[in-house]
């Protein structure tokens, strides 16, 4: 048992090499993209996009910690706030569509084309 050492969160974060964060968040981001690509349900697509945003957040926090620069974390708050606003509008749109066509399958929405 090692004595529990008081570690600051940035230090904790820095215990993992930066590249790992990069890889993980990129993986998360790509998973989000794949989700957008493969799903037809509007809500799940939307969730995948949120996943992409969170990948960005993770990355920003990692960079922020490594650089000891608070701007990155500020940005994360902005992203979260804006994402919330986006969710509000996005869900409203999805609801509106559901009211009209009784479905939220984006595959059905292809009246506008060519």
């Amino acid at each position: 048992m090692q004595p529990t050492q008081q570690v600051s969160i940035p230090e904790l974060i820095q215990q993992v090499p930066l590249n790992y964060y990069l890889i993980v968040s990129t993986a998360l981001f790509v998973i989000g993209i794949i989700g957008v690509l493969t799903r037809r349900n509007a809500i799940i697509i939307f969730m995948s996009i949120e996943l992409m945003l969170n990948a960005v957040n993770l990355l920003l926090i990692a960079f922020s910690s490594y650089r000891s620069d608070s701007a990155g974390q500020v940005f994360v708050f902005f992203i979260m706030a804006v994402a919330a606003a986006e969710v509000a509008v996005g869900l409203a749109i999805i609801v509106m569509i559901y009211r009209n066509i009784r479905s939220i399958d984006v595959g059905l929405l292809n009246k506008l084309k060519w």
Partner: protein
Amino acid sequence: MLPIILLSVFGIVLLFMGFLKSKVLLLPATLVFILAALATTFMDWGKTYLYFQNMLLTNNLAILFTTIVLLSAFMVVALSNSFIEDEQAQPAEYYALLLFSLVGAIMMISFENLIMLFVGVEILSVAMYVLAGSDKHSPRSNEAALKYFLMGAFATGIMLFGIALLYGATGTFVVSGIKSYVYTNAYGVSLLLYMGIILLLIGMLFKVSAAPFHFWTPDVYDGTPGLFTAFMSTVVKTAGFAALFRVLSVSFVGVYSFWWGTLAALTCLTLLIGNVTAVYQTSFKRMMAYSSISHAGYLLIGLTALGTQTKQALVFYSLAYSLATISAFGVLLVVSRQRQDTNGVNENFDAFNGLARQNPLLGFVMAVSMLSLAGIPLTAGFWGKFMIFTTAADKGIYWILVFAVLMSTVGIYYYFRVIIAMYFREGAAEPVKVAPFYRYVLIAATILTLVLGLAPGLLEGLV
């Protein structure tokens, strides 16, 4: 930076005004608000100021872009008189959203920190998502809203990833900070930066509907109510190009050789897809969507050939394009509403048949705006193209010029289909009526187009 504050406040005021029974005051109030914002914009004229802890920066270029955006918004609002008659419409909300979106646009124009860019883009976009779906009972409008929203959010994600990478590479969100990083590390900039540049550019190119990130444009323009389409295709595009210009000309100019080739390829692709696809359209509105893609292509030439001329070219082109586009949509709105067919409003080319005879003024306005969009001399559009072409020539990129010339020939083809319909085809005999104020706005826009076409030197020296 008063306009940002003013417009936000005015937006809220408008929402409250929505509680009033009478909707009559809304339109003039909005116009006054926009004019007030416009007036305050010029308070910073001639100087460079940093606002809000170095988050925003105003200079003459930003003021000019803001002016174009506000002018476009003014015209769009002025052409929105039909809301008063429409039972379904909730004009107070619409106007408020328009004002809010303008705040976003101004932020995109004058950001100094990438956070502001992101916030501006989102404010503008979220408002647009709502406006795209404002015709709640129309499946077309719904579809447009969803498509715009999903794809817009997706593009935002990409852009954010790019910003994050840039941050990782440079450790700052400040535009000029990135610039100094690029200059100080001229020979060893990291891969993260390059990747960040690419992803950030892609996110923004999506907003200005450059190919191959343009796919949302035709569908969304088509489904969105015409007035908001006009707003989208002018304000969003102008703000988008202002933002692109700022990042490219300030932050990334040091690595010009890295991105210009990619941008040049995308420019050509945009020109090709926008112009060629427009040829086959039967819907005027959809054609305008492709036309907006093609104009994004011309504007991109200015960025690809980034140089001393670019600023002026972008400003002039945006102004010319906005004037012409809004006049065109203005005419379309009147005509499509009075020429209903089985699908509701008729937004096809044949709606314009014989228009020049039934209402010579509308015909003339439309003709001038089409000529301007096609870049025919004596209109502002010609000088816009001319200036864009000179930027390319200044950089010596003549092949892109030749390609653009070929594509503008294609462009003439589809713009002239409207003129042909209006002037040379027979249409319904009943006259098309236009409200007086509406008419003045159209006349003013047309005269401005022609004046700029005759005396392009008027705008000279402003930037």
